[in-house]
């Protein structure tokens, strides 16, 4: 298993993601100007503030050569995980539906949250359904993490089993629609979530529940 972690100027959590990926295989950084994903089995688009995120989170990163390569990789069925800023980038790139808006509190928030792993139906392309745990304790930290999509899109996502994670009752830190913390594409190989599984891979830093997310993505080739 070889992981590629995309690095933009302004990425913050790329080394954390690299470490987390390294626990289940090899991992290397992919520079934002590179289109080279040769030999990579799964891609992580990590957290941070790509290109400063001054315009709108992820709005510039979508135009990078690396993201063009990631879009082709995803279209060919390759597993892609977007975390926080990576989730924002995947939404901007139209690899995932919806958008991430400024938190309801209008403030950055950093706290441990409980996630309910949404029931995934295998016949709907549920390639992420090998997460055995019902709830995961994972930290969230973001200023623009309020998931939003039109109601009809949300209905469709629910019907398709594309809601991957919801904040457990009382844990929604940002006002996300229907408590949605993470979604995946219809094919099931692209997953994005706001909380940070790469910061939950070691009991020393608080939790190991994030490991399950990486394992699920590793097995999510469409």
């Amino acid at each position, binding site marked *: 298993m070889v992981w590629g972690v995309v690095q933009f100027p302004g990425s*913050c959590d790329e080394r954390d993601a690299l470490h987390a990926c390294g626990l289940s295989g090899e991992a290397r950084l992919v520079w934002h100007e590179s289109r080279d994903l040769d030999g990579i089995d799964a891609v992580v688009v990590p957290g941070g503030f790509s290109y400063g995120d001054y315009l709108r989170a992820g709005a510039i990163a979508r135009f990078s050569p690396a993201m063009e390569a990631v879009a082709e990789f995803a279209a060919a069925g390759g597993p892609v995980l977007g975390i926080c800023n990576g989730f924002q980038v995947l939404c901007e790139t139209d690899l995932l539906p919806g958008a991430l808006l400024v938190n309801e509190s209008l403030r*950055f928030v*950093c706290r441990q949250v409980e996630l309910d792993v949404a029931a995934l139906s295998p016949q709907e392309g549920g390639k992420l359904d090998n997460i055995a745990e019902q709830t995961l304790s994972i930290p969230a930290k973001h200023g623009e993490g309020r998931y939003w999509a039109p109601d009809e899109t949300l209905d469709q996502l629910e019907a398709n089993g594309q809601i991957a994670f919801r904040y457990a009752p009382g844990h929604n830190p940002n006002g996300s629609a229907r408590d949605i913390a993470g979604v995946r594409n219809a094919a099931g190989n692209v997953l994005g979530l706001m909380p940070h599984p790469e910061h939950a891979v070691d009991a020393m830093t608080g939790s190991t529940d994030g490991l399950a997310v990486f394992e699920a993505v590793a097995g999510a080739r469409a």
Partner: protein
Amino acid sequence: MNAPAASSPHRELGLTDSEFELIVEKLGREPNGVELAMFSLLWSEHCAYKHSRKLLRRLPTEGERVVMGPGENAGAVSLGEDVAIAFKVESHNHPSAVEPFQGAATGVGGILRDVFALGARPIAILDSLRFGEPDSVRSRHLLDGAVRGIGHYGNSIGVPTVGGEIYFEPTYEHNCLVNAMCVGIARRDEMVRAAAAGVGNAVVLIGASTGRDGIGGASVLASAELGEGDEAKRPTVQIGDPFEESKVLECCLELLGKGLLVSLQDLGAAGLTSSASEMASAGGVGIDLDVATVPLREGDMEPFEIMVSESQERMLAVVEPGRVAEVIAVCEKWQTGGTNIGAIADHGLVRVLRAGEVVGEMPVEALVDGCPLYDLEPAEPEGWIYGNEASLRGDATPAETLLALLASPSVASKRWAFEQYDSIVGSRTARRPESADAAVLAIPEADAAIAVSIDGNGRRVACDPYAGTVEAVLECAQNLACAGAEPLGLTNCLNFGNPEKPATAWQLDRSVQGLADACEALGVPVVGGNVSLYNEGPDGPIYPTPVVGMVGELPDPILTAPSAFAAAGDAIALLGPFEPTLAGSELAKLRGELDAGLPQPDVAAVAAACAAVRAAVRAGKVASVHDVSDGGLACALAEAAIGAGLGCGVDLQHLRERGCSPEEALFGEGPGGFLISGEAEKLESLAGEGVAVLHLGKVGGETIEIAAGDRSLSLPLSEAERAWRSLGAPLTG
């Protein structure tokens, strides 16, 4: 501030007549405009430390573990053979009082640059903030802006904010304090000093372009009292760009990793002027800079503006001529600036050129070391010189008193603030804010961990500058002990009023002596620091506020105890030479009873208690440990109980045998107290030579029950928690 006089440009720039005469004497002629601007900045209090440098010579700065001491961009201590931990605290008080968001943001940016200038990757930020009471609109505005600014910069650049403290006192109403501390990790063989070296070497400016922002920040803003019309000083506050800094940081670390730089210095206060002069001074060389080569934001900038601009996110590097192209290529990779703007020379001058023509020429020595150092004229003031109005009724019951203390903004939970900071990026944070008394960070590179704490209670220093400053050092040492850590080094930021006033001079003198004595007694070297003077508003000076940051070492990040109780049924005990009194306490403040004077701390006894706690934590003998601080033992018990969601029942009778009244036992303050919990036999085994352990009671139930003679109290845990968590609501409204 001196009265502006159109006929005396040097006065407008903050120089006295005699200082101006000295400049003329050193140059042998009158300075031109460029030279005068540069002198005025380097001879400002902010850059020259002209009222504090003599005092600072008292501080112990040497130790086995010191890798870099005062005089470098930051201090550093060794952690194992190969790794060094760099750290420094710095103030950004006046910019934050004028424009809190950008003032605090650029304060963080500046301290980060100080640390990566050494070749250290920043791994943690802590901040120490002081504001007026939160019932004032101005204080809420300053607090909100400062917290957002710190978060904006630290979160965006990917360095976790792992700890800090916030105090609210009326004396900070006009002049808030924003002190930021950064901790970094370096490979010792990749570290670099700030001294310029090698005649003929190139001087490369790395990072952002230079604009008109922050002109005169160090002299006009940082070295004078605040007063009417400060809004007009907003243009002297710099604007931060964390994205640019993130690129500059990665670029500089890559350059140092490849061994491409001879030396590196950040551009902070006084911009190019101070960086170039200080690098030249440290290296005993001269420097030529051509301002025509400096990339500008506005094309029509004058040479003096380019030399004094405080535009952020810039670094100055000395590079061998043959490697300049490689350096610029790395800058291009990181999409940041890299421009050859000058050269190291052997003429001992700072020469400013414009397209080859000399527009300013000054001996390095005159600029950097020529500023006269002033002796203070201290005089001890009589009694308590600050106001203090009662806010708590005299007949409040003990339970009401505890609730009032828990809700007091300086004691209450600061979750509202620290949740706005990313505290976990970097995967090193073993203890998040408020889960332990010190932040704990894993350092797998050295197979070890560090604990970091930042402290300083200005009110107690106001009561007794000597004892209060000793207590600040002890508080840090106690916090580290709670994490099982042994102190390695200390940094400090001395925030005081106008040193030309005798009472402030006396506070400064006594405080520095306390700092020196406490560090000496604990064997902790001072490896760096910062002085911020003239912190006064129209209503007078701030409380004298030395802020102490301490870094300690522990063998394993797992071997730390939480501050909250762990399990029902555990025994609770008090360890250490804690002899509480109401002098300078939070309760004395609420009652309007503040007065001069504090008991003199017994540093050796506290050090022995710290050693015992450190050993107990490392051996896993305590399930929780929390140092007894603001609000006394009752507040420490409540905090440990709230954090665990478990009540407690204790009897303070044994403490009263130390001669304190029931009220002092409950709410009195003083150094040396550790609240510990765990198995009763293990706790008792911690008593030893010079270390007392008093059994207090047990963890459990849903109330906080404290027997203290005629002041006994019982309080439902939920009520205590509501009071302790009450700070956020009025701030977000």
